[in-house]
């Protein structure tokens, strides 16, 4: 009986999953990944052969177009603030006393010196608009293969392994056009809050460099407290 139940369950699961379209998967993932009204206390650790660095950050996310990040402590002692407002991004360094607009080539550089590029966290476009997406699956993952269809896509080829149970990518792989694996994005841990699965520890791995990766852990996540709109202004950034 137990055995039959499991088989039925698996078949049901299979049917259910195979019924999932690309859009369904993307939508479910987006629900987990895209945050509104969230406050995080997080730690970013950057590992490289040159030495390790870490910083503690407070992040306020109203929606994907209103993000404020405050570095409250870093191993180098530097403090800075970062504001994403619509499509513009600003960096404020208190010791310099002024904010700079991050644009052009700076977008391609690592966010706060990490392996995440500013672009990784600034992309507002729908994946569908940028990539030609195909779906495969195995017993554990929906595998989304995304090929750039626009000239200005951030990546040429990206594979996303979405966990069937959590609808979070376990791993995203970034390839060159010649199919060489360049970067890996891994969700190491997540937890369920208010009905959505929130990643709590993520890794970005640069495979072109030995032992070079960035780890981001979310120590405190608050999805309920309302964030004042005034936080997402240049005035607040430069306060």
């Amino acid at each position, binding site marked *: 009986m137990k055995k039959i139940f499991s088989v039925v369950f698996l078949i049901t699961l299979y049917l259910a999953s195979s019924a999932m379209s690309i859009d369904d998967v993307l939508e479910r993932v987006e629900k987990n990944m895209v945050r509104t009204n969230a406050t995080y206390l997080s730690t970013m650790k950057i590992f490289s052969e040159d030495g390790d660095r870490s910083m503690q950050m407070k992040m306020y996310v109203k929606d994907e177009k209103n993000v404020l990040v405050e570095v409250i402590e870093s191993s180098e002692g530097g403090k800075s603030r970062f504001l994403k407002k619509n499509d513009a991004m600003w960096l404020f360094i208190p010791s310099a006393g002024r904010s700079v607009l991050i644009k*052009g080539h700076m977008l391609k550089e690592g966010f706060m010196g990490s392996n995440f590029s500013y672009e990784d966290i600034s992309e507002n476009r729908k994946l569908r608009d940028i990539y030609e997406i195909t779906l495969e699956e195995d017993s554990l993952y929906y595998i989304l293969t995304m090929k750039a269809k626009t000239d200005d896509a951030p*990546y040429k080829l990206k594979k996303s392994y979405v966990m069937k149970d959590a609808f979070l990518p376990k791993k995203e792989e970034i390839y060159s056009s010649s199919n*060489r694996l360049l970067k890996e994005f891994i969700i190491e841990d997540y937890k369920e809050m208010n009905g959505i699965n929130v990643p709590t520890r993520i890794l970005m791995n640069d495979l072109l460099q030995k032992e070079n990766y960035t780890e981001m852990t979310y120590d405190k996540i608050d999805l309920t407290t309302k964030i004042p709109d005034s936080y997402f202004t240049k005035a607040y950034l430069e306060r």
Partner: protein
Amino acid sequence: MNYWINLAFKNILRKKQRTMLTMLPVVFGTAMLIFVLSMLEGVNNDSKANLRNYDSADLKIVSRDFSLDKKGFGVQEAFYVPEDLENFLNSSKFVKAHAKEVIFSGNLSDGTNKMAVICRGVDFEAYSKTFLTLAKVYPPVLELDKGVILIGEDIFKWYEMPYDSVFILQSRTGGGTFDAIDLSYDGLVATGNPKIDRTTVYMNIKDADEFLNLNSRISAIAVKLKNPSDLNRFINEIKPIIKKYPELKLISWEELAVDIIAIDSAKKYSSSVMIFIILIIGGVGIANTILLSVYERMKEIGTMRAMGASNSTIVKMFVFEGASVGFVAAAMGMILGTVLMAYISFVGIDIGGMVQDIDIGYPIKSVFRGQFDLLLAFRAGFFGLIIGIAASFYPAYRVVKENIVRTLR
């Protein structure tokens, strides 16, 4: 005249040690002047040659927004080559060769280490005619195939990879997409120009074009002239064509060399001031020696004046002495300076060990060479002579103002 030369030399030799000591600063000042100016001139010439042979050619045609200072990641502003411009370059009587370049920045990785590099996509044949770079590849290459990469020798030190290894060059395409290309290592580029050797890699221009999705756009056309002195004439000839394409501009190697020229003139200025001070000290030394001998020989000079030697004769006599000291010292300085100059010109000073990766401001890496210039030596010697003459005027003037009767006592 012989009488006075004889007298001057005999007077100088009265106090041999004192004269020697007096001459020392002038000897060293003159030698230093020759040495330093030769060095600066040589370094300057080598720098310019390094710039033109490996980096700038005589002239470059680039996008209006091309900037050397831009630190961006990815490809420099690219442009389509207008057909009439290409035809002009092919037919101009001034042009020896020209080569297209795709210039972009990227990260070069062997899977373990990643280094920021400047990448140049080039066509072997055209590039070899325009630059010496591809002749400085070890092991020598006769072509630049698709799928291969040549790496500046100082970058290569970071990887320790065997010959034929595959490197991954990662960059952003023309549209800004993160991408990478696999290239197999084919040789080291060792030009002696640190800008090239420390930062630059070379690949086939077609690879670059495909990788960056440029559709035959390029970053620059480098032009080498048959005769570099025709630069301005050539610019006048090409200007009307460039004017038709507002997205393009010309950069001559001289504009790219402004840094070198600025450093050069600053260094020349500061060393000239230093050497000038040494020579002034030398001049004061000569003046002091002459003044001392004036006082020692007061009675003798009084005798000469009593016998009817005019003021100008006396002044001439001392100036002749000063000039002789200056001349002998300057001649010794010239010989010493010329020996040093010959050494740095024909042997050179290997500074490689001292400044491994330090940017000294010049596109020269290890061996500093001077410029062997005998005219320079003569100029420096002449300068020493002038110092000697100038320095002895005052003491001589001093003595003819003395009352004869008093000097005879």
